[in-house]
Structures are given as structure tokens and as C-alpha cells.
């Protein structure tokens, strides 16, 4: 029995590792996806899906991250952190002075780059990983000086794509002839010239804002995990240390020891998280390959099966006892000792929670953020340790009883793992099919929760509640499948294609005043200035899908309504794309809808912000606030 467990465990580890190795090996080759076109086509026709290639390329700002530091009165340091596999062209790096005329730029001294042969351009010099340049200035003026510079650069990636020339305008203040350091990050001082980067900035801040939320989520996840049988081996170990103290154990000391034990275990997980964050970012490229995505997805299905008790993942018992023996030797009744054991226990428990842990690690790997990974998994470790803290301080009085309910938690994780599996293959299968898979998952879980079974006479309240959730899950699953059949592709709005839903959404739509010519727009804008009113100008067209999405998902949001309370809402319908329409688009330097411009009473007819393309409500509200306040 033990033997088969062992075999299964190693088999799975092998699959996981080999698929990782396979992934890195293929990461460098461009995506040449083998086609499962035949099957896709049939289903595509049925569900009206679309291949949804995931764009795992880095954004220009991530690929070439420029930061600038004022070293002293005559030196500015430019530093590009260049992502792995990306490079900058030497002859495309330029620094230009905008003002003042009292300053002159000296020629740049470039470090030796890497020679790269190009069939068209011949030998070129490029920089990988990083480029550090010192821009020396001749400053004829005494005292502190404000300088404006434009830095332009251009680069490509090894996988065979190039980024358009980028330029950043910087406003720096040079100190008096001292060596005062004045570090500025490019992100803070750069005038974001392109619309893209404006929006990227917001996206960045959103990610930062949600760090604590992510930690909270993972804390909850850890707490749920602690109700699985996996944590049970930790109980005797912790109790062991505490009992080891005998009568000398005070409650305070018990708390201290339990605490150091739990924190050490959590730190071990944090280490996993950091590694996943670092390792995962390199793995991102390989996630473009359908085979890799497919095999990962398959591994998750296997892991899910273990949660449903089809087989068990565990460290072999002999190893477990050995580790716990070592830990008892370690336990010289010190806080440090219990910390060491916390670390060891995390390893003991590791394989048991391997399945959910792997899911979490993959998620973090995808974000490629080591800090986030560390914090998230630390929170998860703490969450897992909360019951242990309780046990420790109550000296075992609060020990949970093993029972059937633990199986429910395991099967819940099984469902979560299947969800991860679907989420992974989501990007390589038509949207219609993935929504069907989601539907099936919810239906199956609903049935598992006995949604379709009659409640026994005198069933407990818990059983009734479970059945209610089961029915909800079942219904949602059915709705998803119906939605898929009607061509819906969004699991959160599966019925968006059905007309009943549309008419209700329009009730809370924004009400725009239509303008159609440039002169009309001009008069309206001037009137708004007199009224001291901000203006939002929306470019709309019937054929513009993103405009419709904005209308249906963003403009209906109460927060958007709130933010636009005192704003004059104008809309230009450019469906016909006639001369008037083109003149207006050209006037604002736009290619076409979807585009939204903002004006404030004192912006003199110049837009103070713009949103191009579809944007969700929360970032949109941020954009509104930035533009009109």
C-alpha cells in the first residue's frame, strides 16, 4: 500500500519536473503551435468561439525599464533594466536637450555592446540585460538648474519582435556644484507622453493596491488548507515540543514557541513563493506553447484526482518518522529549535498540500513577481498556522476531530484545481469551449453537493445549506452552458448575448449629448467652460466592439456614474466615417473609436486625459479623476 503511494508520488513529481524542463527547452523557439484545428473548428462553429492567443510579451516599459539618477551638477545617470531575451540598439539611444540653453550635452560614452549580425542592417551593436550611461553636461550657469531632456531608444526581443521607438521626457533639477545625490525614478518624473504609458501607470498602481488584498486572500486560503488532514502531522510535533517543556511551560512561553514554529513554516512557504516569482517570470514565454499549457493543465487534473481520494500524495511514512525524530532531537526546548522544526514540518506537510500549493505557485509564477509571491505564500503559511497557534496555546484542548468534513474540504480543493486546469487551457481553446468546461465543472460540483438528491427526513441545517449551494452551483453551470450555446464568451456574463439581458443593462447607461460637427463641438465646449463644467467626449461607432463593451460593462457601473456626476457628457458617432467625422478625429489626432477625451474648464480646449480602447470601471474611474480634477 505504502509502496504504491510512493510510486504515485514520484510519478507525479516526475511529470511535473519533466514538463517544466520541457517548457524551458522550448521557451526560446517561437510559437509554432501544432493544430488541433479540426476539433476546434467544429466546436467553433457550434459555439462561435475565437482562438484567444495570450499575449505573453512584455509591455515596452517592462521590457526596457528606464530609471534616471542625478549624480551631481554635471552628471546624470541613465539606467535601463532590460528584460531577459530583450535588447536595445546602441545607435537608437539618443539624449536631446529641450531647455535651458545654458546647458550643453556632451557626447555619450557607450559601453562595449554585443555585436549582432542582421541581414539587412549588417553588424549592429546591442545591449542585453542592462545599459548604464552617464550623460555629462556643461553647465554655464551657477547654482541649481532645472533641465528638461528627451531620451529616446528602441529595442527588440530575441523571439523576433521589435518595439516602436520610445521617448521619455524628463524634468530634472541639478544641484549646485555639490555632489548631492538626487535619485529620481523615471516613473515619477517622466511626462508620460504616450497614452499607453498613462494607462500602464494606473495598472501598476492597481497591482500595488491589491497586494494586501492578495495577502488576505492567501491568508484565507491557508486557513482553509489548515482544515485538511495535511496539517495533522504538525499537531503531534508541536505538542511534542510543548510537552517537552514539562511543567516549566507557561502560557506565554507556549505562545512564543507556537508562534516561532508557525512563522518558520510560513517563511519556508514564502521562500517557495519567491522562487516561483523569480522562476515563473522566465517560464512565461513557455506558456505560449499549447503543448506546455496542455500538459500543465493535465498535471492539474491529476492533482485534482488525488484530492478526490482516487490516490494519495504523501511523503513515505519511513521518511516522515525520520524527520519527526530529527525534529525531536532538535527540540531542545528553545524558540530556535521550534523554528527549525517549523521549517522541517513545512517540508513534511509540503507534499500533502502539494496540489493546492502547486496551483498557488503557478499563479504566482504567472505574475512573475517575487515580492508578491513571498508575501502571498507567507500569508498562506500564517493562515495554515492559525489553528496550530490555537492548539499550542490551549495545550491541545482545541484539537479538531478527524471526520468526514475534512474530505469535503479536500474535494473543494479538487474543484479549485480543476478550475486552474480549465483556466490554463482557456487560452489555447476557443472561448466557447472553455465556458462549456466551466459549466460542466459547476454542474458536477453541484451534483456532488447533492443538489439533485432529496434531503433526508430530519436533515441538519448544514446539509440543507450545502444543498442550497449545490443548487446554486448547478444553476450557474447550466447558465454557463446555455450562455456558451448562445455565443457568450465571458464566464461572468454568460448570457450577455441574450436580448433580455441587454435591455436591462441599457437602463443604467450614461446619457450623452450627441454632437456631429467640429463647430458644434467647439460651441458646446466653450459653453461648458463658461459653466465651469468638465467635459467627457466619447467617440462612438456602431461597428466598434470595444465601444459597445464600454457601454455595457463600464458605463453601467455606479462608480462611473458617480465620478461623472458634474461632467458634461458628449458623444460623437463616427459610424459613417464621413468627412466631418474624419475631420474631428484628425483634430484630436485619433485613428478612430474607441476613444474618450476629457476636458477641464481651464484646459483651453486641450484634452487633459484620454482613454483608448476598452477599460474596466475601476481603472476608468481613476482615469476620470486624474483627468478632470
Amino acid at each position, binding site marked *: 500500500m505504502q509502496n504504491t503511494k510512493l510510486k504515485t508520488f514520484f510519478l507525479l513529481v516526475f511529470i511535473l519536473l519533466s514538463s517544466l524542463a520541457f517548457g524551458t527547452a522550448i521557451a526560446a523557439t517561437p510559437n509554432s503551435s501544432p493544430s488541433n484545428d479540426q476539433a476546434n473548428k467544429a466546436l467553433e462553429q457550434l459555439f462561435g468561439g475565437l482562438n484567444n492567443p495570450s499575449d505573453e510579451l512584455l509591455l515596452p516599459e517592462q521590457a526596457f525599464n528606464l530609471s534616471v539618477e542625478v549624480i551631481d551638477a554635471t552628471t546624470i545617470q541613465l539606467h535601463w533594466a532590460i528584460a531577459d531575451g530583450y535588447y536595445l540598439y546602441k545607435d537608437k539611444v539618443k539624449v536631446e536637450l529641450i531647455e535651458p540653453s545654458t546647458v550643453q550635452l556632451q557626447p555619450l560614452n557607450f559601453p562595449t555592446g554585443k555585436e549582432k549580425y542582421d541581414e539587412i542592417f549588417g553588424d549592429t551593436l546591442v545591449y542585453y540585460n542592462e545599459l548604464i550611461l552617464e550623460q555629462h553636461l556643461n553647465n554655464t550657469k551657477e547654482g541649481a538648474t532645472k533641465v528638461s531632456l528627451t531620451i529616446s531608444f528602441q529595442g527588440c526581443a530575441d523571439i*523576433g519582435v521589435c518595439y516602436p521607438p520610445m521617448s521619455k521626457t524628463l524634468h530634472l533639477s541639478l544641484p549646485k556644484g555639490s555632489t548631492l545625490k538626487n535619485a529620481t525614478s523615471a516613473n515619477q518624473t517622466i511626462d508620460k507622453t504616450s497614452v499607453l504609458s498613462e494607462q500602464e501607470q494606473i495598472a501598476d498602481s492597481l497591482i500595488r493596491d491589491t497586494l494586501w488584498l492578495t495577502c488576505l486572500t492567501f491568508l484565507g486560503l491557508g486557513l482553509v488548507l489548515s482544515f485538511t488532514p495535511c496539517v495533522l502531522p504538525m499537531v503531534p510535533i508541536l505538542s511534542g515540543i510543548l510537552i517537552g517543556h514539562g511543567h516549566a511551560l507557561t502560557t506565554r512561553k507556549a505562545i512564543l514557541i507556537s508562534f516561532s514554529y508557525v512563522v518558520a513554516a510560513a517563511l519556508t512557504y514564502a521562500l517557495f513563493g519567491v522562487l516561483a516569482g523569480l522562476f515563473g517570470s522566465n517560464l512565461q514565454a513557455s506558456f505560449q506553447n499549447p503543448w506546455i499549457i496542455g500538459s500543465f493543465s493535465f498535471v492539474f487534473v491529476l492533482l485534482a484526482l488525488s484530492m478526490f481520494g482516487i490516490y494519495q500524495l504523501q511523503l513515505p511514512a519511513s521518511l516522515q518518522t525520520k524527520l519527526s525524530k530529527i525534529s525531536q532531537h532538535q527540540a531542545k526546548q528553545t524558540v530556535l529549535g521550534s523554528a527549525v522544526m517549523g521549517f522541517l514540518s513545512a517540508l513534511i506537510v509540503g507534499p500533502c498540500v502539494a496540489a493546492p500549493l502547486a496551483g498557488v505557485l503557478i499563479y504566482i509564477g504567472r505574475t512573475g513577481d517575487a515580492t508578491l509571491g513571498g508575501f502571498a505564500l507567507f500569508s498562506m503559511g500564517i493562515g495554515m498556522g492559525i489553528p496550530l497557534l490555537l492548539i499550542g496555546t490551549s495545550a491541545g484542548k482545541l484539537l479538531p476531530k478527524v471526520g468526514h468534513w475534512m474530505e469535503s*474540504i479536500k474535494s473543494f480543493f479538487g474543484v479549485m484545481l480543476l478550475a486552474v486546469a480549465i483556466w490554463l487551457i482557456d487560452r489555447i481553446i476557443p472561448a466557447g469551449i472553455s465556458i462549456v468546461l466551466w459549466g460542466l465543472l459547476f454542474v458536477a460540483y453541484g451534483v456532488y453537493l447533492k443538489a439533485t438528491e432529496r434531503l433526508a427526513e430530519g436533515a441538519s441545517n448544514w446539509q440543507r445549506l450545502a444543498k442550497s449551494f449545490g443548487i446554486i452551483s448547478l444553476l450557474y453551470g447550466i447558465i454557463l452552458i446555455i450562455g456558451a450555446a448562445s455565443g457568450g464568451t465571458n464566464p461572468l456574463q454568460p448570457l450577455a448575448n441574450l436580448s433580455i439581458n441587454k435591455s436591462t443593462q441599457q437602463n443604467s447607461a450614461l446619457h450623452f449629448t450627441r454632437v456631429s460637427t467640429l463647430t458644434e463641438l467647439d460651441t458646446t465646449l466653450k459653453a461648458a467652460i463658461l459653466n465651469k463644467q468638465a467635459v467627457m467626449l466619447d467617440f462612438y461607432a456602431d461597428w466598434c*466592439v470595444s465601444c459597445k463593451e464600454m457601454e455595457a460593462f463600464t458605463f453601467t457601473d455606479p462608480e462611473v456614474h458617480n465620478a461623472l456626476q458634474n461632467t458634461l457628457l458628449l458623444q460623437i458617432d463616427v459610424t459613417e466615417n464621413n468627412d466631418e467625422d474624419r475631420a474631428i478625429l484628425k483634430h484630436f489626432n485619433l485613428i478612430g473609436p474607441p476613444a474618450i477625451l476629457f476636458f477641464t474648464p481651464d484646459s483651453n480646449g486641450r484634452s487633459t486625459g484620454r482613454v483608448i480602447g476598452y477599460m474596466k470601471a475601476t481603472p476608468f474611474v481613476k482615469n476620470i479623476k486624474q483627468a478632470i480634477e
Partner: protein
Amino acid sequence: MKPLTLFFGLLLMSQANFPFAASDHPIKTRPNFSLPDLERKVRHINEWDGKVIILNFWATWCPPCRKEIPEFVKLQDEYRNQGVQFIGVAIDNEQSVSQFAFEMDMNYPSLIAEIKGIGLAQQYGNRAGALPYSVIIDRHGQIVFRKTGPLSRQRIINTITSLKE
């Protein structure tokens, strides 16, 4: 205890970070646009409605873009009779494009979008704004394929063959 699990489960699922939030809205219908060609004539994308369009965003300063264009020229010749139309959108100036088009004997229209063409590429689903970027549009104006980076001959042939009526 089971309902407690479910409560946590629903709580977790409602967190925007978990798998459910993964689906963004794929753009399916091609956005409209018009741009000048090398004769400075304004061409509207709906001019080619009813054809299978391979829309290629490129630039002369982008080596991988330049590299794949001879193959496009060949394919344009081979598939012209079957209603397949290549269209280049150059994130570049007229002078460079005109020179390159002459050297390469480009047999399909090059539209000049300059740097603002990146915005158009984004409307067509190019998140990172990198080049080359190609989309294939079927006869009904639906985007059926998107690819950042070089597009292989085989991939194009597979896709256009699957779209044949």
C-alpha cells in the same frame, strides 16, 4: 462544516485574482480605419470586405518584419485568385516604406500609419505594441487569428485554407 468550506470557496472565487477573472474580452469584429497608401490615396479597410485579409503591422526599422515580407509577396501572388489580400500597415514614414516597397517589389498595398499606427494595432488586439503583428480577417470581417512575431508560411496557408468556403 461543509457550508463553511463553501463560504470560503465563494469568497475566494469572488476575489478578482483567481481563475475566473482570466477572461478578457477578445475583439472579434475588425475595427474600422482608413489610412493613406504610397500614392497618398486614402484607403478604407472596408474596401476589401469579402476577402480574406492578412493585415500585417510592420516597420522598416524592425528586422524581423522586413525578413518575413518576401514570403508575403510570394503568398500574395499564389493566393490572389482565391480572394486573399495582404495589407501592410507601416508604423513608419512614407519615405522609408516607399524605398523598401520598391526594393522588395511589394505587390500589395502598404498603408502609412506612422507611430500612431501602434494605437491601431492595439485596437486590433496587440497588447504589448510589438512588431511584427499580424491578424487574419475572414470574409465576414471577423478576426480569426492574431500573432505577435513572425508568421510562418504554413500558418498562413493553414488558416486561409480553413476559411475557404
